[in-house]
Structure formats: structure tokens, C-alpha cells
């Protein structure tokens, strides 16, 4: 009892912080999503009407589709690329420190800055990509961001470039915990590099990779800045993602209730996926 009396005030700052900055906005958004709310019509309770409208909104469903395509393909590529980068730099002995700094650089660049840079790389007139692919044949130059397929790939490429270094960093930390004796023993037993990787390294760094995977999945589903800077959803909404759609509804169009409903759906998807990931991959990773 006395312990509790001392503990409560000590927990207060953290509790206030959590409730004020995390719980309160989330609950507020959930409540808002149950209202029709725009400056023009005022605020009016509407039950689940915003969700019904969302389910029948073709443009919203298209953004859900691309958000899934984006999140799944970019996270998959980032996990592979990140592990490969980590394996490569873990073997470097000379200049390891500077090399690591270089590898983490993309992660340190603010996404908006990276997005502007990639927008220029994909530019149709003076973009680096056109120059690398077509050299001086100007008539061959393509507008990568003007066609649905290439615009989608461009956004995924920009995200992979940026986030692979994050995965690499976490994987590198995991690699350092792999005991050298185990690797030696595997080598003596005649296991080749591929086999050593899949049977020794990978199981041991799995917990680290799970952390990276979780972060990346959550991050990828709430992608906004890349799309906002690079394409604004163009061409014809083909690169629009859920968060960007929600922003359009909430701010330029002033439909606060509908925008809140979009946010809640994004939140629910991320929460469900996180639980799923921790339950399945996580449990297996920890048991082995």
C-alpha cells in the first residue's frame, strides 16, 4: 500500500504524457470519425456513415490498393537489400566506421529532401535516370512520373533507397551477436556460405530482423511525404496512398469527419498487421 502511494505520483508524468499526446488524439480522431463535420454544414453525429461512404468510394479503394502494393513490395525489397548491405559491411575491416556512416546517410536525410532529389532524378528533361539510360538521345527521354507503372515504381524505388539503410543498421547489430565459434563450427562441418547464412546467421539475427520488419511495415503503411512531394497522387490518382487521400479530405476539402475515418482505418490496418506479425513471425523467431 505504501509502495503504491509512492509509485502513483511517480507514474503521473508518464501517464499524463501518454494520455495527452498519444491516447487523447487517437480517441479524438475516432470520435470525430463518427461525425459529419465541415465548416459549411457544421458538426452532426452520423454514426458509421463515414465508414459506409469510405467502403463505397472507388477513389479511396484505389488508394488502399496502391498502399498495399507499395508497403508489401517496398518492405520486401528493403529487408533483402538491408540484409545484403549488412552482410557486406560486416566483412569490411578497414574503414568500418566511415563506411557505416555512409550507409546510414539515406536514413538520416529527411524524407522530404530525399523525395525532392528523387523527383529530379526522374525528371523528363534533365533527370539523371534519363541521362544514365539514354545518354544524349534526347528524343528517347521518358517522363517516368507521368505513367502509372513507372510512377509507382519510382516511389517504391525512392523508399527502398531510403529505408534499406535502416534495415541494414538493425541487421548489422544482429550480426554482431552471432558467435564466431558457431560460424567456425559450421565451416568445419563443411557448410558452404549459403548454407551457413540460412542455417546459422539468419536464425540468429531473426529477432533483430523482426524489429526492423515491424518498424518498416508500420512506416510503409503510413507513407505520405514521398507521394506528396513526388507525384501528388498523379497520374490520375494512381500513386495516391491512404494517408494522402485522408489529407486531401481533411485539409484542402475540409471534410474533417471523413478524413478522420480514413485515419482510423489506416490506424486499424497498421495495428492489425503489427499484432499479426508479432504473433506469427515473432513467436517462431523467439522459439527457434
Amino acid at each position, binding site marked *: 500500500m505504501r509502495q503504491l502511494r509512492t509509485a502513483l505520483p511517480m507514474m503521473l508524468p508518464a501517464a499524463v504524457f501518454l494520455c495527452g499526446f498519444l491516447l487523447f488524439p487517437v480517441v479524438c480522431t475516432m470520435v470525430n470519425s463518427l461525425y*459529419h*463535420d*465541415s*465548416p*459549411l*454544414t457544421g458538426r452532426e453525429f452520423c454514426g458509421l456513415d*463515414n465508414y459506409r*461512404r469510405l467502403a463505397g468510394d*472507388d*477513389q479511396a479503394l484505389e488508394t488502399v490498393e496502391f498502399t498495399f502494393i507499395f508497403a508489401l513490395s517496398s518492405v520486401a525489397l528493403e529487408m533483402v537489400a538491408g540484409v545484403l548491405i549488412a552482410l557486406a559491411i560486416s566483412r569490411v575491416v578497414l574503414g568500418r566506421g566511415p563506411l557505416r556512416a555512409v550507409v546510414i546517410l539515406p536514413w538520416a536525410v529527411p524524407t522530404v529532401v530525399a523525395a525532392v532529389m528523387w523527383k529530379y532524378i526522374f*525528371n*523528363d*528533361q534533365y533527370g539523371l535516370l534519363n541521362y544514365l539510360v539514354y545518354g544524349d*538521345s*534526347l*528524343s528517347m*527521354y*521518358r*517522363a517516368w*512520373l*507521368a505513367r502509372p507503372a513507372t510512377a509507382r515504381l519510382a516511389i517504391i524505388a525512392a523508399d527502398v533507397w531510403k529505408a534499406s539503410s535502416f534495415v541494414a543498421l538493425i541487421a548489422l547489430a544482429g550480426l554482431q551477436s552471432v558467435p564466431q565459434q558457431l560460424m567456425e563450427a559450421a565451416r568445419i562441418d563443411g557448410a558452404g556460405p549459403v548454407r551457413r547464412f540460412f542455417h546459422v546467421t539468419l536464425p540468429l539475427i531473426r529477432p533483430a530482423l523482426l524489429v526492423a520488419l515491424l518498424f518498416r511495415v508500420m512506416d510503409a503503411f503510413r507513407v505520405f511525404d514521398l507521394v506528396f512531394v513526388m*507525384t*501528388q*497522387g*498523379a*497520374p*490520375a*490518382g494512381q500513386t495516391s496512398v491512404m494517408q494522402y487521400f485522408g489529407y*486531401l479530405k481533411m*485539409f*484542402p*476539402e*475540409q*471534410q474533417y*469527419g*471523413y478524413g478522420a475515418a480514413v485515419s482510423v482505418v489506416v490506424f486499424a490496418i497498421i495495428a492489425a498487421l503489427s499484432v499479426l506479425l508479432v504473433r506469427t513471425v515473432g513467436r517462431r523467431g523467439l522459439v527457434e
Partner: protein
Amino acid sequence: MDARGMCVLAAAGLLLAGCGGGGPEEAVTGITVVTWRPNSPATWDRAIEMFEEANPDVRVELQTGPSSSTQLHDMLSQRLRNRDPSVDVFVMDVVWPPEFAAVGWARPLDEAFGPGERERFFEGTVEAVTWEGSVYGVPFFLDAGVLYYRTDLLSRYGLEPPRTWGEMVLAADSVLRGEDDPSLYGYSAQMAQYEGLVCDMLELVGSAGGDLMEPADEATVRALRFARDSLVHLEGMTPPGILTYQEQESLELFASGGAVFHRNWPYAWALCADTAGSEIAGNVGISKLPSFPGGETVSALGGWSFGISAYSPHPEEAWRFVQHMTSPEVQRVFAVEVGKPPARRALYADSAVLAANPHFGPMEAVFEAAAPRPRSPLYPQVSHRLQSFLHEAVGDSGSRIPEMARRAADDIAEILERAGG
């Protein structure tokens, strides 16, 4: 200030006195003006200096927001929604007043900006600030789409500025074939998925006798097919990136000698003529936009006005500032220094304005007849739906325009019916 101005001011004072205008006890009243990030901050500073000299009892704080109209709207609407009393005066894009009026963010200015004074402005600009019979702003400057062309290239091939869109494509084709330059294109315009696309397409569709708010209309579909097949997807007519171009990119292409024809707002004139940034200075002509055979040329109306916040605690001082910024003197300064077409008619006979902008004379009729975009308090929603429809209609070479148009028309009808949400 002339006698007439004093009368208007007195009327404004009477009108606004009951609304908590600055009392006599305050020596200096500060007012806050929110505007987009200007290309010409020095001109703004000078205009404000002129105001403060004539009104020593008011100090103006200029807050500059984003230069993009959409983002400035995001910022302003957030502040006004929260009834922020620290905003007194704001600039309004030509499509905002219906929303600002219907929601109650902009103060009605019927008495201060009386019918007599309104007649001195272009009718379209006054209509743009009018909603349900009341005026909510005073026009600052206007914009209207015009066609720029390369005089040197046209005369080399004995061509006249085109009157129809078809003539323009044929003329561009002759030039392209004669020049045989892979970095030269026929036409450069704004076709990214954003507000500018709505303006460009309003002009094309309107000049065919169609209407953007009737996307499934036959004339509308015909004009969009032309844009898709003869502008966007005709080899060499437009650069491949046209679907990502806003004003700046399209102007860069034209100013670097990369296009025969170019659609833009009047501000592009000064930049094309400037030898420092333009490779085509001295070889640029300007004309009305083409139309389709049997149709009339249509220019989209753009431009900005000043409004006063309904939550401003200093409406009287705010009005004095608005009156100053929209006065002939200040509009003349902006026309001469920045090339903004004044909203006041009289300035089109002003020697200083015409000396700096010789193209304003022949373009006056275009400014006079400029066509407004759809007028609705729900314009942001309507515009987003139109943008995505138009971008796909002209961007996808296999687009089934009538079908997409019907879906867009249904969605727009639904937006107007739901009225918010």
C-alpha cells in the same frame, strides 16, 4: 485620398464601428495581413510603407504563407476555422470567395465596396468575390490564360498566329518538320494533376462550346479527345513530361527555346522577355488562345482579391489597408514592377502601365471576357474530382472518355448534394 475615397471610408467606419473597431484610446493598431510568399517582396514592402505613411495610426504585419494556392488555403482555412483573431486581412484566390462567404469567414463588404466603386473593376473579378448577392472581397489583380508563340519560327515558315487549335497543331507540325530538332516540341502547357489542369482544360472545353461541370457533354468529350490525341499523345507535339508540368516547368521549356507555342498566364511575358533567363527574348508573341471551329476563345479567369476576416478585431483599419492595396496607385505599382494585370479597368489606359506591359493593351478584351471556374463553396472537392478525371482522360492514350466522364459527373453531383460531411 480623394473626396470619394473619404466618403467610402466614412461609410465603412459607420458600418464597422459597432463591430469593435479600434477605439480612440489606442495610439497605434497592429493589423496582420496573410498572403502567399511573393516573388517580389520589395514591391509589397513598398506598398505597405506607402500605407503606413498615410495611416500613421496603423502598423501592418505581413505574414507570408506558402506560394502554392492550395497550401495557402490549407493554412488560412485552419486559422479561420479556429476563429483566429490574429488574422485581419487575407488574399483570396479567385475560387475561394464562395466558400469563405458561405462558411462565414470573410466579412461582407457591401457598403464599403459600393456598387459605384465596383464598376471600376472588371466585371468578372467582381463577380468572383460576390456570393448570394453580397461582396466579400476587393479584386487585387486578375489573370487570364493567353497563348505565347515564337515569332521567329512562325515567320520563318510563313505562318500566322493560329485561330483554332487545329491550326495550332498544323503550324507546330510544319515548324517541327522544318527544324528537325529533337529537343523542340510544338506546345507546352500545364497538364500535371493540379488546379492548373482544370484551368487549361476549362479553356479547351469551353472553346468547343462544352462545360467542365457537364463532363459527359458531347462538346466536352470532343475537346478532351483532341487534347489527348492531338496534344498529349501526338509524337513531338508536347514533351513526354507534359503530364507532370505546372506553370514553372512549362515556362522553362518555352523560355529555353523548347516549344513553338505555350499557354500561360500574363506573368510569363516579362520572364520570356528577360534576356537573363530567357533564350527567346525578342522572339515572343502573345495572342488570344485558339478555339475550335465555330467556338469562341475562352480564357480561364485567375487572380486574387483581398478579404477581411470575420474574426478581425480591427475591421476598420483592415478596410483602410484593403482600400489602399486595391487603389489605382498600388495596382499601378504592381503592374509596372511585377507585371500583374490590374483588376481596375482605368489602368489599361495608363501610360506607365502600358509602357511596362505593352501586351496589356491588346489583351484587355481577353481579361474582360475571362471565364470563371465553377463557383461553389465545395469547389476544392469538385476540383479534386475534376483533376483526377481530366488527368486520366488526357493522359491515358486508351482512356474511355465518355464512360469516365459519366462517372465524374455522377461523383460531382453527389458532392454537391452531400454538401460537406
